[in-house]
């Protein structure tokens, strides 16, 4: 779509709007908040114009035109809801639904299905088709991630185009003719693309469903949170869906600067650790569950001893080990606590994996940049040294420190029980707290709470602030992540002027290089 900076004036349903030349009618209508219904059209895929639901009337044109494949021209007058258009849409809906199995009762798409929506908005509610419906294969396995239902498919070919144009694997095609027409997968019928689950979101109907999410919950039971995937440093924007405090799925959320409409399968399926039954729920001291007050008192006593001994000095050696899964607010609180103790040994470790040239980043943690910004070093810990006190935020797999580290006292924040810890606080996953992280490309983005971990649970930021309050007289922590961010904005040049609402759902780009030099 080459615009050359030219704009055209069009009238859509009586509203004047100026759009770039080369915009199609569906996109132009979005400028005046008018939705032209569409199944096959997607802004990131090529236009095929085969679903015919986006028919609109254009003044002076003898026949109705499809909105997706008709670009606006100067002075064009478009009607998206005239009687002629309405009649045409009713006809298209009736044809699309002729062979539809109407198994909304067991269809996972029900509740977010465009066929349901448009049948209500633009359908007649009646069928004149008096014959037997076409029978096609149901519950066809397309590998271990995607399930295909041929009866529900309306042949919009979004999935075909996605795997061809964006993944380049070209695995799905259309086979058979006439009423028997159906989608098939190449070779052995198994999809292989590492981005294949995006076709589930692309599918406007319930023909493609997720093997992982299948029958787990109806969408209307779930609560949704706009948050991030924290599987790698990319920080793809997602909508996380939870029911009864169990995380059930993630679907990508549009962000043109980060992940566009997509996310990788690895990240999408990387949430089950949240629902693990064996997670640490209550704090533990010497292997016994205790209330938070007792655990905080014990941890404060250990830290107080270290403080009086001189922190990182030769007589008492203290190590602060952060994790790149922590939010900026927690890292800020942790750095503040270590400042109060005078600890200089601050480390963290980045779990590394495979990346690719689309979205997958080799750093398998969301906030390594934040950890560096708040003064933690991505360097190996001196395992030879005898440490007196180690404050350790475990990564998701429990790692981050050498196994054979010599430490007299350990304060550990972990997902699972750490047997070596003197004081063990439960760790919160990124789906259970608010905060900000710095994703790849130095982009500051928000993570949001999708579920509550445990009613009495304190997040790490609160624990760290209370610990600091116990060893430093007069220190007051902040109540919310937004207030903590405001405090960071006062102290760090890179965050200057940033607020919780200012970051928004799409995030902002930071100028980190000069800030780090300045700090």
């Amino acid at each position, binding site marked *: 779509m080459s615009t050359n900076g030219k704009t055209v004036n069009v009238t859509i349903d009586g509203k004047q709007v100026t759009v770039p030349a080369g915009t199609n009618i569906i996109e132009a209508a979005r400028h005046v908040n008018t939705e032209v219904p569409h199944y096959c059209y997607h802004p990131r895929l090529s236009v095929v114009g085969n679903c015919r639901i986006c028919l609109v009337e254009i003044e002076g044109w003898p026949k109705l035109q499809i909105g997706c494949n008709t670009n606006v021209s100067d002075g064009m007058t478009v009607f998206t809801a005239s009687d002629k258009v309405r009649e045409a849409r009713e006809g298209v809906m009736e044809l699309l639904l002729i062979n539809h*199995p109407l198994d909304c009762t067991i269809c996972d798409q029900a509740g977010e299905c465009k066929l349901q929506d448009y049948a209500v908005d633009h359908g007649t509610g009646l069928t004149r088709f008096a014959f037997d419906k076409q029978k096609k294969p149901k519950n066809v396995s397309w590998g271990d991630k995607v399930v295909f239902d041929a009866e529900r498919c309306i042949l919009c070919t979004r999935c075909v185009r996605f795997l061809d144009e964006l993944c380049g694997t070209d695995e799905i095609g259309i086979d058979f003719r006439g009423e028997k027409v159906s989608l098939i997968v190449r070779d052995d019928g198994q999809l292989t693309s590492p981005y294949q689950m995006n076709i589930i979101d692309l599918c406007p109907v319930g023909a493609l469903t997720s093997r992982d999410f299948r029958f787990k919950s109806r969408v*209307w039971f779930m609560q949704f949170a706009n948050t991030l995937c924290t599987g790698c440093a990319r920080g793809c924007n997602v909508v996380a869906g939870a029911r009864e405090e169990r995380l059930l799925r993630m679907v990508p959320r549009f962000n043109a600067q980060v992940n566009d409409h997509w996310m990788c399968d690895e990240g999408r399926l990387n949430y089950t650790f949240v629902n693990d039954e064996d997670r640490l729920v209550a704090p533990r001291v010497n292997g016994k569950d205790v209330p938070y007050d007792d655990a905080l008192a014990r941890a404060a006593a250990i830290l107080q001893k270290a403080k009086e001994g001189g922190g990182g000095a030769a007589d008492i050696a203290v190590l602060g080990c952060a994790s790149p899964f922590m939010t900026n607010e927690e890292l800020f609180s942790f750095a503040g606590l270590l400042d109060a103790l005078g600890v200089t040994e601050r480390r963290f470790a980045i779990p590394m994996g495979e990346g690719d040239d689309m979205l997958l980043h080799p750093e398998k943690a969301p906030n390594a940049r934040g950890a560096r910004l708040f003064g933690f070093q991505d360097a190996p810990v001196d395992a030879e040294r005898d440490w007196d006190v180690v404050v350790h935020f475990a990564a998701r797999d429990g790692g981050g420190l050498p196994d054979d580290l010599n430490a007299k006292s350990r304060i550990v924040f972990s997902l699972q029980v750490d047997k070596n810890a003197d004081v063990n606080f439960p760790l919160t996953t990124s789906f259970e707290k608010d905060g900000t992280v710095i994703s790849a490309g130095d982009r500051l983005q928000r993570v949001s709470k999708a579920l509550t971990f445990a009613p009495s649970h304190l997040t790490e930021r609160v624990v760290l602030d209370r610990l600091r309050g116990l060893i430093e007289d007069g220190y007051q922590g902040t109540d919310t992540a937004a207030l903590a961010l405001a405090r960071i904005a006062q102290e760090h040049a890179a965050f200057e002027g940033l607020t919780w609402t200012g970051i928004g759902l799409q995030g902002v780009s930071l100028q980190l290089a000069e800030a780090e030099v300045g700090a």
Partner: protein
Amino acid sequence: MKNRVRVVKRPQLSFLERWYLGPVVKGLGMTIKRFFGVLTDVLFRWENKKTAITMQYPEERWDFKDNFRGAPALVMDQEGRSKCVACQICEFVCPPKAITMWPAELEDEDKVEKYPERFEIDMLRCIYCGYCEEACPEEAIFLVKEAEIVYADRESFVYDKDKLHAMGGIREDRIMKWKDK
């Protein structure tokens, strides 16, 4: 304001009415008549009783009307298989959230994909409103003529799938989703 006040004259009782004895005798007569009627019923003609109206619960039970709203129950088709497809619409529509369901996938069947692995109705929560029956798209849940749900512990009030199927029994229907959708 004054014009709106209307003085109502209290009706005057007649002499006999003021004396009370007449109505008392009349009432006692009715009591005695019913006493001997019931006595005759009990002694000689219990099967065709004319006067006694007391139901001998629990040997005798009410014959509920067809639209009676009792406890909800799941029904089975002619082949004894559940009609429920675990769409969870009853769970959604249930005002007191008495229904809980754990759907699962059927691997072996080719016609039916989804079924309730567990299905529980908490009869302590149920208010017998009948929304579940009204909402069910598969005609799988009905309010049956069952009103006496009494237990000594709370756990027994949670009816599981087997118990609900036993209550609902088999319902003849021409739609057999297990055979042909």
